[in-house]
């Protein structure tokens, strides 16, 4: 029984009772011993006994008064705070809380749901935003304003598009990407250097556009700009789903194998392909690698500490790590790895 436990082990009351009783018993025993030994005359003995008992009674009476007062005090406190009228006030009452819960349910949507819905309401304005910029741009668009070189660039891009996916097309793409210089029959940007083909921004050309005559060098410059612009646009707009990558590879691999003889492959591609596969194998051995890569953004420079500090430094550059980070994020790493392995095997015979 809880209250008894409380009484025995927690209440200071018990301690006092035990103390007083023990003192009283001790005194009595003392008197008895003294009397037994014959040091006390009978009258004194009786008086001593009586006195101790009276003291005991006085202590008990004080106890009693104290406890009784305490009881009255607590009772009036409880009556005041826990009165029925206080209990059934609307605040904190069971029926009121239930009515609030019902109201909450009738609102149909939780805060998380409503957050999504207001995001969507904002989001659809995105299309309106595009509509606006299209309309305002077109309103102020004057074709003659666009200089000759921009029109030429568009022509270059359209030409490129028209050749899409033929052998000629792929030859052109790879020659551009690896920086083929026809006069010297030489590739300027082999392996890793090819990954930097797309400039971050297009610089203003140094060629003047006064008059309608353009120098051959100027034409060449525009052509190069157009080509890289096409490739950049293509990279950005290609769907990176697993299916699309697989289909695209299957449809075009014949052309790619045709372009890359074994020696060309070894010179231009092998280091990158081998590194990518190697690094993927090592990365995926670590537990929790996906979560680790999900934490970092796609800057190549952040992958210094993973695995061990030395690990990325043993590679030529840290670009492959960023590459796989982006593939993990796009959820197509398995497919890409499969394709890379296929390429590696094809050229290892």
């Amino acid at each position, binding site marked *: 029984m809880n209250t008894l436990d409380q009484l025995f082990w927690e209440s200071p009351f018990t301690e006092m009772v035990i103390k007083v009783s023990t003192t009283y018993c001790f005194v009595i025993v003392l008197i008895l011993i003294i009397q037994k030994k014959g040091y006390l005359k009978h009258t004194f003995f009786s008086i001593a006994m009586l006195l101790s008992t009276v003291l005991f009674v006085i202590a008990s009476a004080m106890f009693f008064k104290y406890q009784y007062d305490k*009881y009255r005090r607590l009772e009036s406190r409880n009556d005041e705070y826990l009165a029925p009228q206080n209990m059934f006030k609307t605040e904190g009452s069971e029926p009121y809380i239930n009515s609030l819960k019902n109201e909450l349910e009738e609102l149909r949507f939780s805060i998380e749901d409503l957050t999504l819905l207001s995001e969507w309401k904002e989001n659809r304005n995105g299309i309106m935003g595009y509509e606006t910029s299209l309309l305002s*741009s077109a309103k102020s668009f004057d074709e003659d304003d666009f200089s000759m070189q921009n029109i030429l660039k568009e022509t270059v891009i359209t030409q490129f598009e028209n050749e899409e996916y033929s052998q000629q097309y792929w030859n052109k793409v790879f020659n551009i990407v690896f920086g083929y210089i026809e006069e010297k029959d030489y590739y300027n940007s082999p392996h890793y250097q090819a990954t930097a083909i797309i400039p971050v921004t297009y610089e203003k050309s140094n060629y003047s556009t006064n008059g309608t005559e353009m120098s051959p060098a100027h034409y060449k410059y525009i052509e190069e700009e157009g080509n890289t612009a096409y490739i950049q646009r293509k990279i950005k707009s290609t769907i990176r789903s697993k299916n699309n990558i697989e289909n695209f590879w299957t449809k075009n691999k014949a052309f790619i194998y045709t372009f890359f003889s074994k020696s060309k492959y070894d010179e231009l591609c092998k280091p990158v392909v081998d590194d990518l596969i190697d690094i993927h194998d090592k990365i995926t051995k670590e537990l929790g690698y996906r979560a680790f890569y999900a934490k970092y953004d796609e800057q190549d420079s952040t992958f210094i500490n993973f695995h061990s500090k030395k690990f990325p430094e043993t590679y030529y550059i840290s670009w492959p790590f960023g590459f796989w980070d982006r593939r993990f994020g796009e959820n197509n790493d398995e497919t890409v790895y499969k394709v890379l392995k296929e390429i590696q095997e094809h050229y290892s015979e």
Partner: protein
Amino acid sequence: MNKIIIIVLSIGITLVAYATYYEVICLDLDADFNREISTKKHKTGQEQGLKNQITSIKNYIEILEEEEHYSYQNSSHYNELDLNQPDFIRVNKCVKQYLDKNKFQDNCEDYIIDAIISDFGESNFIEAVIATAIDYRFLGTDYAFPKYLFSNNASLRSKLVLSFLNRYRDPEKLQQTFNEYKTYFYERISKNVYQQIFNNTVSDFISAYEDINQQPDADTYFKDIYFKAETQNAHGKYWNVTFWKRRMLEKNDKTIYAILKEVKNHYDSL
């Protein structure tokens, strides 16, 4: 003398006994008091929490129901395409032609949509279209949504949305895109949102398709429905059914039905 001592001792013990009794009662009173106070605190806390939730949700709903005061002047903070880049010269040409003739020439729709997708992203575009199909005043599907797309006075925006959607009339492309993004959308759209906003529409279309398949003669059935729609001028009412007729002509009805079923099953089993 002994008797006196014994009597006095008894009185003392009785007093102690009573004192013990009152101590016990006091312990009970204390326990009661503490329990009630903490229950009250808990309930008041609970009550305040519920009240706060209700207020925030109501505020949210009020904001959502507000009429949009979207004006072109205020659009500067929305997505913008940098159309001064020479790459988009043909997009500019296309829109200019659209403004002159109120329709798109040649492959203009494709150019424009491609330009938007390269900036916006395909899944964001899809999500924006979903967002456009909701009526925020009543937080349900906007049944006037198709009307805006196909009306003769459709805005450029509606026409772009329609062009974008037209890409998915090809059943393979539709299936491929669905597979690609479904995980994203399943996570994004909670069961409650699906139930409250989309379930009715999805279920209506599913049962309309199943009805059609149970008809002994589908052609007669459709003729009948179309007749009713024309004479009662109630195309909206029979749209669930006529929708499937158009899908059968496009040969994507089976794919779409399968996708609808899959979505419904996914959320029903959550």
